[in-house]
């Protein structure tokens, strides 16, 4: 038995039955990282020694009955834009190369309360801006399915680490598709929760009105389990919503009979790879077989989603990233003679090209004289996008689309063409704009064996619905 091939719910059961200890599990993952990391390059910081020590302590405490949490001793990987006390949080940027957070993000507090074991901090596009993890200051992560291709992004390290069995599951963050798209590229499950379901406190902000933390896992059940851990209102984040605590694993009924699935036809049009389209169509057939009602409809506002997204996300980023000014923490230039140069050179030297591009874009759209034409207009379109989705959810339980128009592309093919890179988000951004939950699950592979992802979109706080629909497909195609 290769422990690292097991899902978390399997590991959990084996821990419970004393078939495995936390040390057995952690050791297996540490070994796997030792073998695989040199090829995949998913980690910015590994915590293997610390993890083994922690596993030992958890085993002792579990034996004494001091720890009873079901997930105690389960390893996890953390995207490197989630603040971890005492362990550096770099956002894959030179700017934060040596930054150690003085506090834990709320999700980390929850992970720690369960006595899960962090195996390390995972690579990403710098400040979560990108769709291939090529914009990391430190390294380029490779897709475990084909090392010549990208893992997607920005949570590419998280998705690759899960796909390569270097962690059993991981946390990512999703601002415009950064969980779902890499999950799709790497053939794993990625869930972006409803905006407000998971606390953003301690997630280094890219675009505050769009960011959400979510799970990247091997299967749908694990996604439900990890969501159970991280969801919930947080007083430290006023945008987190007070909702009743749900057990998402109870939603996995494996039954879609009579469920209405809407297929927005714009997501199957121009620019979508033929093989991707085919696999999605097969998946739709599968749902019909399972008793779901399928209907095609038009979500024409989707055409404006990408432009809207880039205006809003960049505007918010330009303000959020202002704090990296070389004054209190992070990179400070050596090359300055006055205050203005200190600011300018620290930021010019500390940020990578894509981050600077988005800061400039965002600054531009907020500038007086341009605000109305860009930012304000984008906010108005945002309202329309929400309304369109509201209309759709009046008719359908879930919407089904491809997660990405293509499978994973080769490293270096898009990194110099920002517009083409932005198009990788075309199927996912509108979900963030509307604040909806979306999940990407594997839906076969193309002729070269590269994974294809299917996205299921739910109404606000209908994570249980999309998890159930995803689960039904996963079980039926096992």
């Amino acid at each position, binding site marked *: 038995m290769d422990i690292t091939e097991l899902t978390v719910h399997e590991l959990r059961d084996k821990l419970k039955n004393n078939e495995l200890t936390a040390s057995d599990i952690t050791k297996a993952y540490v070994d796997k990282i030792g073998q695989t990391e040199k090829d995949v390059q998913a980690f910015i910081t590994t915590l293997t020694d610390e993890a083994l020590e922690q596993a030992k302590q958890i085993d002792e405490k579990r034996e004494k009955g001091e720890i009873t949490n079901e997930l105690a001793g389960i390893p996890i990987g953390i995207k490197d*834009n*989630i*603040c971890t006390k005492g362990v550096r*949080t770099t*956002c894959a940027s030179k700017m*934060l190369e040596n*930054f150690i*957070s*003085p*506090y834990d*993000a709320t999700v980390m507090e929850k992970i720690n309360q369960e006595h899960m074991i962090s195996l390390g901090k995972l690579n990403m596009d710098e400040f979560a801006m990108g769709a291939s993890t090529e914009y990391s200051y430190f390294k380029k992560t490779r897709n475990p399915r084909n090392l010549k291709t990208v893992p997607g992004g920005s949570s590419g390290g998280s998705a690759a680490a899960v796909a390569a069995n270097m962690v059993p599951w991981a946390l990512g963050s999703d601002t415009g598709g950064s969980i779902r798209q890499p999950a799709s590229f790497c053939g794993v499950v990625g869930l972006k929760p409803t905006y407000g379901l998971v606390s*953003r*406190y*301690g*997630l*280094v*902000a890219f*675009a*505050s*009105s769009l960011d959400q933390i979510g799970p990247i896992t091997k299967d749908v059940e694990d996604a439900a389990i990890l969501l159970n851990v991280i969801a919930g209102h947080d*007083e*430290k*984040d*006023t*945008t987190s919503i007070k909702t009743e605590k749900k057990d998402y694993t109870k939603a996995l009924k494996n039954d879609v009979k009579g469920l209405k699935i809407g297929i927005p036809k714009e997501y199957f049009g121009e620019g979508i790879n033929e093989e991707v389209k085919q696999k999605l169509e097969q998946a739709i057939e599968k749902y019909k077989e399972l008793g779901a009602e399928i209907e095609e409809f038009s979500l024409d506002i989707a055409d404006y989603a990408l432009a809207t997204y880039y205006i809003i996300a960049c*505007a*918010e980023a*330009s*303000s959020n990233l*202002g*704090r*990296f*000014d070389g*004054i*209190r*923490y992070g990179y400070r230039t050596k090359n300055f003679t006055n*205050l203005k140069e200190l*600011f300018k050179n620290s930021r010019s030297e500390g940020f990578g090209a894509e981050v600077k591009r988005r800061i400039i874009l965002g*600054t531009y759209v*907020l*500038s*007086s004289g341009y*605000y109305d034409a860009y*930012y304000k207009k984008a906010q108005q379109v945002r309202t329309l996008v929400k309304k369109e989705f509201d209309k759709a959810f009046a008719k359908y339980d879930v919407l089904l689309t491809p997660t990405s128009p293509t499978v994973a592309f080769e490293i270096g093919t898009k990194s110099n063409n920002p517009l083409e890179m932005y198009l990788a988000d075309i199927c996912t951004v509108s979900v963030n704009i509307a604040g909806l939950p979306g999940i990407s699950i594997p839906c076969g592979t193309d002729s070269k064996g590269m994974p294809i992802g299917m996205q299921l979109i739910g109404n606000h706080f209908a994570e249980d619905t999309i998890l159930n629909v995803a689960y039904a497909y996963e079980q039926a195609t096992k």
Partner: protein
Amino acid sequence: MSREDYEIVIGLEVHAELSTKTKIFCNCPTEFGAEPNTHICPVCTAMPGALPVLNEKVVEYAVKAGLATNCEIETFIKKNKKNYFYPDLPKSYQISQFDRPLCKHGYVEIEEEGEKKKIGITRIHIEEDAGKLNHNEFNGESLVDLNRAGVPLIEIVSEPDMRSSSDAENYLRKMKSILEYIEVSDCKMQEGSLRADVNVSVRKKGAKEFGTRTEMKNMNSFRSIVRAIDYEAQRQIEVLEDGGKIDQETLRWDDVSGRTFSMRDKEDAQDYRYFPEPDLVAIRLSEEYIQTIKESLPELPESRKERYLTQYKLSQKDAKMLTNSKYMSDLFEQALEICKNAKAVANWLLSDVSRILNEKEMEPDQIPFTAEQLAKMIELIDKGTISSAIGKKVLEELFENPKDPEEIVKEKGWIQISDEGAIKEVVMKILENNPQSIVDYKAGKDRALGFLVGQAMKETKGKANPQMLNKMFLEELNK
């Protein structure tokens, strides 16, 4: 043309730090004067990932300020980001309000020589204070202290309704007094918890259009504000008279040289890129909430003044002066709980206490002694233990080294001499030394009596009971 042909137009932006216990977006204390960077946390130092949570007390205090200045209250509260780079601004943006301020369209009334005038309030909004830079002049370093970062502020923007530096002073005093009365700010100008940006322009009398204005930021004393306005108005008039034009710019007032200096060049014109703050959800205030605050508003200076007229029979002028400062007026009322002599307490506060405050350039809230100590001092006079001349000395002492007046009097040996034998001795001595005064008195010059009493007071260093002296001199002189 001369100065008289011009009209000065002044508008004030008053920044008042709210006296909430904790900061506006985190739980750090707002207390002034702590060691640098001890009242800080991930939120107010803008650590990556930290998020703000609005302190509800801040909203309550700002609504109070709005209601006390006759404003309409906006029930939909939304915050905006104001973006700019400065080392004392950790997030590189200030969370403020832009298009929908919490309060608007209010006014306060000021009075100048009996004439009342309304000064309009354009808006009051909530924002956060920045930190402080401490410049080291010896090594050229600047250190950032973030204790003040995130202390809640309200910015009160007036209409350009003031026409003289004394209008501006009256307005600011009135505003300070209102904020003190409703207890939302301690208004300590010397600590920077109340400061004002002053906008000044001039125009020819009768002109409809405003002139170009200049702004002087962060002024924190009444005296500088008055001087700065007078200087700046004169400067602008001179520029215009010389055929020049006024540049709209920010100036720095230098108190030492008594001049204004240009601060920024125009190419640095700021674009703050205001936009809605997505990290804070908008809040809706209910009518009940606003009504409850309205009902909880304490007595304001205007009504307290009216009460003093009837309850204590004080004069218009005295009642107004006393109630100007909540601190002074509270001191007055507390003193009255011990000493019932309202006129005497008012007199002491308005004459000698005020004089000393002026001399020392202190504000009433810096008075070091308690109401009880003041009341006891007045009682000592009323009981005849000390004379009012000694009372003045006791008061000086209370400013220097406040303690129980009885103790001061004992320690200093200032107890009034009321012993008949002792008084007689002094009287006889003075008469002996001043035979001419006796002659003068007998010749009908009443002033001679005053002179003799004065000499006796001098002799006893002010300790002799003046009534007894008077009586005894008369007895002796009329023998």
